[in-house]
C-alpha cells in the first residue's frame, strides 16, 4: 500500500484516495516539432527499478495534482511537491541522495 502526503491539503492519502497521473516532468512537443521529439513525448517512458518521479491527483480529497518521488522497488516515498514545478526541488533531490547515493533519472541527479 502506498501513502502519499498531499502537498496542498497536508493529508496523508491512502492510495485509494488518489488517481495516478503517470510519469512526471514530461516536456510537451506539439505541432511543428521533430518526429523523434513528438514520439518521445507520446510514447517513451521511464520504467526504472528504483528512484521514480510520478504525477498523482488527490481525487478523493482536495482534487489537486501533485508530484511524488518514490522508489519502485521498496515503495519508499522520498517526498511530494507542487505540480507547478518543472523539476524536483533541491530538498527532494537531497532526500533521495541521502538514501540512494548516485541516483539519476532522466536529466536529474
Amino acid at each position, binding site marked *: 500500500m502506498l501513502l502519499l502526503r498531499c502537498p*496542498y491539503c497536508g493529508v496523508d492519502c491512502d492510495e485509494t484516495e488518489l488517481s495516478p497521473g503517470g510519469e512526471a516532468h514530461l516536456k510537451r512537443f506539439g505541432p511543428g516539432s521533430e518526429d523523434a521529439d513528438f514520439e518521445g513525448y507520446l510514447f517513451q517512458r521511464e520504467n526504472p527499478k528504483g528512484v521514480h518521479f510520478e504525477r498523482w491527483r488527490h481525487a478523493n480529497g482536495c482534487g489537486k495534482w501533485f508530484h511524488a518521488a518514490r522508489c519502485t522497488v521498496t515503495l519508499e516515498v522520498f517526498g511530494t511537491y507542487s505540480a507547478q514545478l518543472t523539476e524536483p526541488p533541491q530538498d527532494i533531490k537531497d532526500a533521495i541522495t541521502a538514501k540512494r547515493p548516485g541516483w539519476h533519472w532522466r536529466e536529474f541527479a
Partner: protein
Amino acid sequence: MSNAVSALNGASFEGYVTVTDMGPAGMITLRGDLGSAAIKKAIGMAVPAPLKITSKGENSVAWMSPDELLALCPYEVADETAAKMTKALGKAHSLVANVSDARALIRLEGADVREVLAKLTPADVAAMQPGDLRRSRLAQIPAAFWLTDDETAYVICFRSVAKYTFDLLTTVAAPSSKLAPT
C-alpha cells in the same frame, strides 16, 4: 412552485448509530483566493483553516481545497445567500454556485460515529476532532464528513449516490455489526 425534497426524503435508521437524512440543505461552492478580504467579506466569518469547518449560527463554512470553500446554510435562503456572496466578491476572480440540489446531507448520531465512518473510509477517523473535516471516500464514492461533537457526525455526498451512501451507512451501523472492543 414545486416542493423541493431530498433524494432520501427524510429517511432514518436506528442502528448502534442513528442515520438520518437531513432533507434539503443549502450548499454553496465558493472558489477564489482564500487569503483575500473579498472572500472573508462574502462568507461573513473567518475563513476556516485547512481541513476545518467553522460555524456561526445556522451557517457553516468548510475548507475544501486551497482555493475552494463550501458554505452551508438553510435550503430556503441558499439562492439569496449565493447572490449576496457574488455581489460581495465584486470583481475578484471567483466563482459562486448554489449546489444544494446536487448534494445530500446525512447525520450520524451515537457514541460510535467514528467507528461507523472508519468502516467505510481510509481516512484516520479516530484522530478526527470536532471541527475537523475530511474529503475522502466512503466505500466507492467520494464524500466529505466532519464531527460537530464526539457523538455527532455529518456526511455530504452527491445526490445521485445518496441512496448508496445511506445503504452503506445503515449496513455498517446495523445493531449486530458493532465491532468487539479491542
